[in-house]
């Protein structure tokens, strides 16, 4: 049978997909236990979420939450730092310890038969970290060295400058790793105090996903966590009470990097929180503007102009309003033109080139038809569930995602773009060679070019 190449084949009927069922329970001490059966491969993913992250750093201690998280596997319970690591290795576990702006997450994937051991290790790290002085000294040195090395990494420099200029003194105004001065001034007591304040059973959600029944998963989590009796020692600010950040002092800033081979760009402003009612509409608007390969900004900057290997935009959703931001690394002699084109695209989507019907359909289709893909592995499912826990999303969130996106029309999506992306407020940060770029940047007419010193 010859192929008809005069047109693309049409899509067949969609196959149904049952989103994983999360079964929810709460232990007497307040730990929420969520389980999902996922039986394709004999693996288990265990994830512990504590909704406390870098935004809970005291203002004079940026980096405290992150180093506390980093210290969790440096000796816990009956095991020294080396013994924790050896135990993880012996069950073939892959451990990720992540501290973001809003949360600390421990995620571990291991073989199904090691479910109890994996939980015991996660529990000890979360509940019984040792926080020993010599381990702290070493871990702090490693973080200081990391900060030192970040001075030569354009993406890290851009993220740091963008974050600081955008949020200033707001709890989101620093990267989780913090600053050199704050890290140096920390003492081990700070870590222990922060842990006692932040890590409490009533704040914790443990998600177990994998090749076992709900009952087996739930019983194993309960056995590991039911003995945890701590009360939080102090309070953690609720992100709903964070003040609005004050507007940046300038609209264009440069971090000088002599002889840079490219310019690293961040362009954005503070936007909306994860719980905003028009979350889905904002997602679709971003798909059209810069959220996928065929978006306007990537097609312009990469596929038309060849200025960059790729440009993308995203709303970084958090509990309090997170940033809308464009990321790109562009060739130096096209820096001003790339910024001009990007700003032009952002402006146009709200004014003279509104979102068309076909763009709307493309954006909605990419999001919805691709959605089941994110439920393939136990770890993906655990992380998806953790989003529901962190942002207090409804239980039927997964199964209502597709209908909610499909119900959006051009007006909804345009309204979200207009509301949440404002060209007049955009801050542009450039990491590049100041001497070579200054004339071109001044031509953008974004006011004075602020110099940002590398700390």
């Amino acid at each position, binding site marked *: 049978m*010859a*192929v008809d*190449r005069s047109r*693309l*084949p049409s899509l*067949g009927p*969609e*196959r149904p*997909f049952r989103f994983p069922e999360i079964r929810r329970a709460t232990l007497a001490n307040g730990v929420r236990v969520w389980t999902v059966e996922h039986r*394709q*491969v*004999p*693996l288990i993913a265990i994830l512990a979420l504590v909704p406390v992250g870098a935004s809970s750093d005291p203002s004079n201690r940026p980096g405290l939450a992150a180093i506390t998280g980093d210290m969790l596997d440096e000796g816990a319970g009956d095991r020294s730092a*080396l013994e924790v690591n*050896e135990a993880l*290795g*012996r*069950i*073939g*576990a892959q451990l990720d310890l992540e501290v973001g702006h809003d949360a600390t997450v421990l995620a571990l*994937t*291991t*073989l199904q038969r090691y479910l109890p051991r994996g939980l015991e290790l996660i529990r000890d790290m979360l509940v019984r970290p040792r926080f020993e002085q010599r381990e702290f000294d*070493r871990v702090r040195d*490693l973080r200081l*060295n990391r900060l*030192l*090395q970040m*001075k*030569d990494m*354009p993406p890290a420099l851009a993220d740091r400058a963008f974050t600081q200029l955008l949020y200033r003194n707001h709890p989101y105004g620093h990267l989780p790793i913090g600053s050199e001065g704050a890290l140096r001034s920390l003492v081990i007591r700070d870590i222990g105090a922060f842990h006692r304040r932040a890590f409490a059973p009533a704040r914790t959600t443990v998600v177990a996903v994998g090749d076992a029944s709900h009952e087996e998963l739930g019983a194993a989590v309960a056995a590991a966590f039911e003995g945890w009796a701590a009360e939080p020692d102090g309070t953690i600010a609720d992100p709903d009470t964070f003040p609005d950040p004050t507007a940046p002092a300038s609209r264009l800033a440069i971090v000088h990097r002599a002889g*840079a*081979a*490219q310019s*690293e760009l961040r362009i954005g402003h503070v936007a909306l929180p994860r719980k905003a009612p028009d979350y889905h509409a904002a997602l679709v608007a971003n798909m059209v503007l810069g959220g*996928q390969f*065929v978006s306007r900004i990537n097609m312009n900057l*990469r*596929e038309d102009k*060849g*200025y*960059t*290997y790729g440009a993308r935009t995203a709303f970084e959703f958090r509990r309090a309003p997170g940033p809308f931001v464009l990321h790109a*690394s*562009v*060739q130096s002699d096209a820096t001003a033109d790339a910024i001009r084109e990007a700003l032009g695209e952002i402006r146009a989507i709200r004014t003279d080139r509104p979102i068309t019907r076909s763009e709307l*359909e*493309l954006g909605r*289709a*990419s999001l919805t*038809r*691709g*959605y*089941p*893909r994110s*439920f*393939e*592995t*136990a*770890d993906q499912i655990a992380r998806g569930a953790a989003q529901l826990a962190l942002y207090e999303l409804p239980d039927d969130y997964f199964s209502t995602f597709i209908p909610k996106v499909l119900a959006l029309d051009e007006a909804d999506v345009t309204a979200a773009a207009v509301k949440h992306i404002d060209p007049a407020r955009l801050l542009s940060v450039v990491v590049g060679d100041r001497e070579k770029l200054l004339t071109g940047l001044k031509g953008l007419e974004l006011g004075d070019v602020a110099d940002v010193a590398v700390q």
Partner: protein
Amino acid sequence: MNLSYTKHTLPNGLDVLIHEDHAVPIVAVNLWYHVGSKNEVPGRTGFAHLFEHLMFEGSQHYDRGYFHPLQEAGASLNGSTNADRTNYWEVVPTNALDLALWMESDRMGYLLPALTDAKFANQRDVVLNERRQNYENRPYGLAGMAIVSALYAADHPYHWLTIGAAEDIQAARIDDVRAFFQRYYHPRNASLALAGDIDAEQGLALAEQYFGEIPAGEKPDPVIVPPPQPSRQDVRMVLEDRVELPRLYLAWHSPGLFKDGDAELDLVAEVLSSGKTSRLYRALVYEQRIATEVAASQNSREAGSFFQIVATAAPGRTLAEVERAIAKEMARLIERGPTAAELERCLAQAEAHFLFRLQTVGGFGGKSDQLNAYNTFLGDPGYFARDLERYRSATPVLLRAAAETHLTPAGRVILSVVPRGRVALALPGSQPVAVS
């Protein structure tokens, strides 16, 4: 632990591998061409990768970019080039399988009629920007080039990295694209794997339907390279870079992908640097605190691998100290081998990694990608179980022997990357190396 499949070869020579997994209504389409930067020649380096970019710019019957219809159908898609192969993949909802096969077959059969000077010039700029972003503007980004250029002679195809030299990319011509396509992009030099929510018979029929009409082409001659002669003396080089901390690279020639000793050296790398209780991490980073990080790896490739250790000196510590500490640990490993307990831990990790790789049908490293790797390099997509057995049958004695044979104390390529203007921080006797 197994990775089931069926294999058929179409009359035009295209291998079709199918793996059924109905857990999620998605199918992975994964296509390998047995061509990479190893097939390039000096003066035209970087070409296989530049060519890969052009595969996304449209083909004769759909000439409006490759991404649009697939992203609209809910696909994720990408491609990559390395020294030995180029791969392309889509993960699509089951109902878009026809679309993905139509698109992949159209660019295999009908790329050239849609090729234009404008597309070529645009993607050359994009690739030059990729190079700036991932190599030139990145700390230590040029070290890999210095290492392979010293390990391999100038006419050896592993002498350059897949990204190639900037001047070669600039010198590429559109006629080169045509010749390259005709030589390497045809069914006889390709392997198609479909994995996911698909019936094996139906999958084969679809593959036949979309790819069967494409002429076979001639199988390219394999790239034959003389086995590199490991030096009996260390080669010491220094590269100045925009970095804060000096970093040391040690590299040795090692057995090729799937050859005797390859899995053993992969495990040796685990013993040396996987986790805090690994030999090098524990000694250099945890106990002596002379390094901020250390990584060992067996970089397995078809025509010969290299084993590499990379360590960054802690502030105030010297690369000479770091080198001595590494040499001491290597000597200890070569003398006594790993302990049974160490090997047990590394095997547990290796087995877990085999299981982790069974979790996804597509993408880089998913099941479809693995089937194609085994088929392309060994002609045996069923190699998964034997691949695992290569690890399971390892013993402390075998690991010791592999380390002793290949990781010789004096046959190393050693690169010091130091902050600009501070060449004195390099290992003594290092010669400046020019890469850009």
